[in-house]
């Protein structure tokens, strides 16, 4: 690919997932990237290191993942649309600052290209083991927004959406991809820049407005603009002043931080459904595994089995509504995932007594769960 001093031309491109992610960020207006090399996310850093200086934007490799996300947070407070990208080990190191970004309501995109953990695990092999870490990784109460792409096209599209959600809700957003989707190359259709919706953060009109309260999603000032904003990860009042003695101040803050996402969950979560109104068997899947499910639907049809499919494009907040419909229609639900049961328990919780939920898990070696394996599971649980 010959790169130029502009955004990608509209039309069809053959892109690697990580490249598509990076190009999506550029369309979303990302003007600051800080990262640290890690397999299988390094292509994002490398691609942006080429592309961002061409566009007069900043890309820097930091000394570690904590510095990467911290620098991105500093840039965000200086008005940037900022991003970092990593994989499990780096995502673990970033948890401290992810909590800080929730607490300080800092818009930020964190791409986590999942590999096999725990710890160093299998560095080059795909997995889906960070779903619960993305939900609960940092301490305290918060509600993250976590998106799950299943193709290079969605690496592009959902990265743009991640930036828009981050700016709209003043919160960190995690793009939780996996090695398979990140390293595969596929057709990506790039729309005209003018057709891409880009959300800009709401700025305050005066320095007397509360920047950390008042409204559910308060306006966000940038430093250096005369607002005298005080930003802190400690409990603070609506003007940002550290206020750690009063239980009420903390309750109000914590409830607003969780509430601003939860109360709008139906607008945030995004799913793709197939045949959920009329099905014998339900499948809930996400990321690379969802690609196998489309083939399962065909294979099952040949055996006169109607599959209803809920594909989670948003993992958190969890799209309960659609899983509930699936549970009402299907007698049982299979949840195939490349971990040892993470979304499974969530589906079980939502399905309650409506449907029996069966896990199908595979970890190690980055081996995808094949359509044949999912079909075999369906046939097994049906008997």
């Amino acid at each position, binding site marked *: *690919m*010959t790169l130029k001093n502009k955004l990608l031309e509209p039309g*069809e*491109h*053959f892109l690697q997932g990580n490249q598509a992610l990076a190009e999506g960020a550029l369309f979303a207006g990302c003007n600051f990237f800080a990262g640290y090399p890690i*397999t*299988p996310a390094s292509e994002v850093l490398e691609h942006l290191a080429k592309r961002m200086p061409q566009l007069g934007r900043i890309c820097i490799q930091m000394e570690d993942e904590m510095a990467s996300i911290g620098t991105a947070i500093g840039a965000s407070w200086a008005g940037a649309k900022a991003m970092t990208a990593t994989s499990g080990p780096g995502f673990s190191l970033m948890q401290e600052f992810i909590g800080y970004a929730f607490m300080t309501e800092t818009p930020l995109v964190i791409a986590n290209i999942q590999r096999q953990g725990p710890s160093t695990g299998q*560095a*080059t*092999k795909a997995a889906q083991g960070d779903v619960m870490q993305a939900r609960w990784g940092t301490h305290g109460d918060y509600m993250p927004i976590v998106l799950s792409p299943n193709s290079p096209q969605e690496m592009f599209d959902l990265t743009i959406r991640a930036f828009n959600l981050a700016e709209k809700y003043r919160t960190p957003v995690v793009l939780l991809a996996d*090695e*398979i989707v990140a*390293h*595969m*190359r*596929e*057709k990506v259709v790039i729309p005209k820049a003018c057709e891409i919706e880009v959300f800009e953060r709401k700025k305050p009109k005066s320095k007397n407005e509360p920047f950390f309260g008042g409204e559910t999603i308060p306006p966000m000032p940038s430093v250096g603009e005369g607002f005298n904003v005080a930003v802190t990860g400690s409990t603070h009042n609506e003007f940002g002043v550290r206020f750690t003695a009063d239980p009420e101040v903390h309750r109000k803050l914590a409830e607003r931080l969780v509430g601003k996402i939860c109360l709008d969950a139906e607008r945030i979560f995004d799913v793709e459904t197939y045949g959920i109104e009329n099905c014998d068997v339900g499948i809930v899947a996400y990321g*690379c595994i969802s*690609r*196998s499910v*489309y*083939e399962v639907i065909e294979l099952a049809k040949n055996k006169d089995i109607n599959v209803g499919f809920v594909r989670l494009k948003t993992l958190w907040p969890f799209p309960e509504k659609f899983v509930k419909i699936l549970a009402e229609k299907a007698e049982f639900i299979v949840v195939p995932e490349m971990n040892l049961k993470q979304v499974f328990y969530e589906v079980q919780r939502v399905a309650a007594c409506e449907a029996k939920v069966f896990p199908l898990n595979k970890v190690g070696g980055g081996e*995808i769960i*094949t*359509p044949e394996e999912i079909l075999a599971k369906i046939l097994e649980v049906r008997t």
Partner: protein
Amino acid sequence: MKVEVRFAGLGGQGMVLAGQILGKAAVFDGLFAVQTQSYGAEARGSAAKSEVVISDKKVWFPFVRKCDVLIALSQQALNKYVEDLKENGVLIMDSGYIKEAPRSFKGKIYSFSFSKIAKEKFGNEIFANVIVLGFLSEILHLVSEESLKKAVIDSVPSKYERENLEAFDLGVEIAKRLKG
């Protein structure tokens, strides 16, 4: 229509790039294609593998299970992947690196010393991958020759563009001669 192609060889033989070029050409032709590659320790010096699934419909499952075409540039790659080759599949192999033809495989075999001729004509074995693409193009017409050439230009450093296009044409010539 669905074709599954696997390029396999040693790290440094450009197998991953060959797969990327084929996938890109398919997209230029308006087809659907997914390319994946083996990644990690085994891609360095030892086995390297690149897979392309091409179809007129959206390709969901991204990996090759039973392949229609196997391009093997090393004995090790051939031994490892020949089993997954469909009975009526096509095997293209580098006779310079592969001494033993597979006994089990009954389909069509094309054997030529791609690496040797690359070294002779261009001074570097690395051009074998693009010679193979030209060869593949002439034998099977999976995608248009025009798109493949466009994909080659789009994928190689511009200073090596001329050599790569010559390598591609050489591959086409070799195939024509072999077909007789």
